């Protein structure tokens, strides 16, 4: 059963990574811990569900649709909430608090629209395909999740490290003022980042919704919890960190559930996180550099 | 020289510092006598600020000895070093931006306010008196640098030059025996420099030692009793302003040919 557990861990870890990707991106560029990311993730899965069950859309279209919907939500949050806060020079915790409010609103809106009960994708849209590798039960869905996570990660990483756009984003991350002086359209890139990050959250939502086949208005909360752990583990704002952190958390959780006890999943994951932070105060990939004087 | 037979306040012996493979300081030695103004000059990136960081305990030297009043500073934490009587200002200004000017200076007096938790909670007379005295002293220091009329302004709203002055007052508030100034007149115009020059002279005359890094030659040469020149992490010259000014190596590496 070890192989099966490893597959569980890989899938779970990939989803964590995918979720954390958008989360870390927003932090990296806007310097905001966006606590509505969990809700945006939930919006993504409801959007896909609505398209599948009300519009009879095929799954791939629903996936795209979910990206657009959640991306738009992310964009709106940036335009309506974060931008005014930037304009007002709000102290750094304030945008985070605002996103808590947004998260609550989105969650209760979803509850109003879809009810609090667990909803599920209809049987017939679930990607078919199950096969056995040895005695491991593999579903096509799991492969897709892992592939999508790694692919998006690679694309994003390349953009950030190798292109002028990526440099511009990193410039903004460090100092919006300096970025303005360089002629970078800071607000524009903030909007784009918010859209992309939320869209990534949306995809993660759909994939999780499919994988566990349970969609509720509250599904974002535990995810957010894990997401924060992942990006801290990997180093805030670091793309590779999100991947490694996500996988790490996934494995820690599954393996400890499997070999210690069901209750130990979080204990081991967070206990390790705690210890890692003590040894590496900026996470695995985080880099702190500051001239002393 | 004003005080020829003064003992040495600070002595730096064979100090080296490297960051990974980058050797920023090598075999640096010099002595700062008490009651004098000592200058450290050298090209950008020569390692001057690094010397200050080593003295104040923000960095630890890779080699060598640093003694203050005959006691080693190596391994002491920064606040202990301040306690010994060393204060500094920063090249990239580090004031407490969200505090007003008075509070900024009063932070500098931290060590000299000795009331305990008990007195604090019950607002004991001793505590009140100490606070009152500190406040007065802070205002006095602010007036030295000409900022007393802005005492309750947020430090962040000061212009660049004023921020430097505030930092200066704050450093004095720790009642140092040795004041380290990292480019104190950067961003000030010549008239303001002249005023500050007098100020620093006064400080020295009150018995403080001053050790400064500065790129403004008129200022350095007019003020310092002795000067060390650092280039690529090594001392290339040491002596009186005139000696240094006419040293061909210094001209070559730092001063340049044309005069102002």
């Amino acid at each position, binding site marked *: 059963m070890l192989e099966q557990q490893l597959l569980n861990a890989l899938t779970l870890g990939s989803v964590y990574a995918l979720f954390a990707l958008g989360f870390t991106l927003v932090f990296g560029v806007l310097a905001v811990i966006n606590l509505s990311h969990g809700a945006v993730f939930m919006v993504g899965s409801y959007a896909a569900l609505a398209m599948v069950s009300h519009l009879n859309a095929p799954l791939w279209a629903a996936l795209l649709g979910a990206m657009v919907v959640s991306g738009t939500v992310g964009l709106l949050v940036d335009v309506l909430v974060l931008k005014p806060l930037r304009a007002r020079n709000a102290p750094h915790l304030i945008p985070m608090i605002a996103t808590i409010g947004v998260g609550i609103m989105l969650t209760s809106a979803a509850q109003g629209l879809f009810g609090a009960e667990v909803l599920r994708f209809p049987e017939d849209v679930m990607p078919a395909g199950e096969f056995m590798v040895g005695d491991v039960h593999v579903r096509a869905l799991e492969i897709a999740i892992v592939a999508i996570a790694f692919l998006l990660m690679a694309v994003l990483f390349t953009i950030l490290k190798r292109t002028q756009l990526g440099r511009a984003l990193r410039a903004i991350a460090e100092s919006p003022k300096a970025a*303005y002086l360089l002629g970078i*359209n800071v607000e524009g890139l903030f909007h784009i980042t918010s859209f992309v990050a939320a869209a990534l959250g949306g995809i993660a939502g759909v994939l999780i919704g499919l994988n566990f086949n349970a969609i509720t208005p509250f599904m974002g909360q535990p995810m957010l919890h894990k997401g924060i752990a992942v990006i801290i583990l990997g180093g805030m704002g670091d793309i590779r960190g999100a991947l490694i952190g996500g996988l790490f958390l996934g494995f820690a959780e599954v393996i400890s559930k499997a070999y210690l006890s069901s209750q130990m999943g979080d204990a081991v994951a967070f206990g390790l996180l705690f210890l890692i932070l003590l040894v590496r105060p900026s996470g695995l990939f985080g880099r702190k550099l500051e001239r002393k004087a | 020289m004003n005080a020829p037979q003064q003992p040495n306040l600070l002595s730096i012996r064979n100090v080296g510092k490297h960051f990974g493979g980058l050797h920023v300081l090598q075999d640096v030695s010099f002595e700062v006598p008490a009651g004098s103004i000592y200058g450290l000059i050298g090209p950008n990136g020569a390692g001057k600020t690094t010397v200050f960081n080593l003295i104040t305990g923000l960095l630890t030297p890779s080699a060598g000895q640093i003694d203050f009043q005959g006691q080693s500073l190596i391994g002491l934490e920064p606040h202990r070093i301040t306690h010994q009587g060393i204060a500094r200002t920063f090249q990239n200004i580090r004031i407490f931006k969200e505090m007003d000017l008075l509070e900024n200076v009063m932070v500098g007096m931290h060590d000299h306010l000795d009331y305990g938790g008990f007195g604090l909670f019950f607002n004991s007379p001793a505590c009140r008196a100490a606070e009152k005295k500190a406040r007065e002293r802070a205002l006095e220091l602010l007036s030295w640098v000409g900022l007393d009329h802005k005492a309750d302004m947020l430090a962040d709203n000061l212009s660049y030059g004023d921020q430097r002055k505030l930092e200066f007052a704050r450093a004095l508030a720790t009642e140092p025996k040795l004041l380290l100034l990292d480019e104190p007149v950067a961003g000030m115009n*010549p008239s303001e420099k002249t005023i500050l020059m007098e100020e620093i002279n006064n400080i020295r005359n009150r018995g403080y030692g001053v050790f400064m890094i500065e790129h403004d030659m008129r200022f350095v040469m007019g003020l310092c009793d002795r000067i060390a020149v650092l280039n690529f992490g090594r001392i290339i010259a040491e002596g009186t302003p005139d000696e240094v000014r006419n040293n061909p190596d210094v001209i070559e590496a730092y001063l*340049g040919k044309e005069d102002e």
Partner: protein
Amino acid sequence: MSVLLRVHDLAVAYGHIEAVKGLDFHLNEGEITALVGANGAGKSTTLLALSGLIKASRGKIEFQGEDISRLPAHQIVERGLVQVAEGRAILTTLTVEENLQLGAYTRQDKEGIPASMEEVYQLFPRLKERAQQFAGNLSGGEQQMLAIGRALMAKPKLLLLDEPSMGLAPIVVQEIFRILVEINRRGLTILLVEQNVRQALKIAKHGYVIETGKIVLADSGANLLANPKVEEAYLGG
């Protein structure tokens, strides 16, 4: 001589406090103009307003005949008005080379970038040595060089410099002033804010003296240098 930038009745306020109180001045194309004044006079504030980083509370800024006072900052840079700000604003978590590349962010002629990079490295050989290091680890003077080099990467039409000589070794200051004269000769218009008043006025065709948010003197650089009032207030007697 055509006017590149014309400022009319520019005022800027921080909250309720007006830091700049109605400035009128202009810059001629191809000239160096100096703006001098005491600490807190409002020089940096003026430059930030020109770059669109602070919004003017009143007044008009005309650049090449166009009113840019309402444009967002990045569009002002696109039009060729580039600033080296006070405090340098270099990106410490990026390498020196990345900083320079970002300087060319708004440039259309991508193929010209490597050549400009080489030019900057020639002006500041120190930067070339440190090309792959994080800019945050540079010494103060090196950072200032990087900031100027980075601005040049944008191929500006008008360069605003806020105290470029601050914190630099005398030899580098001389070098920088030489470079400013040099790039000016190649056609670049420069607005120079300096505490190094003597040197600034020496190379400036025109100069303005600003006091508590108002222009109190305007003359040619040479005349200002000779002006006893300037001598007393800014040159240290």
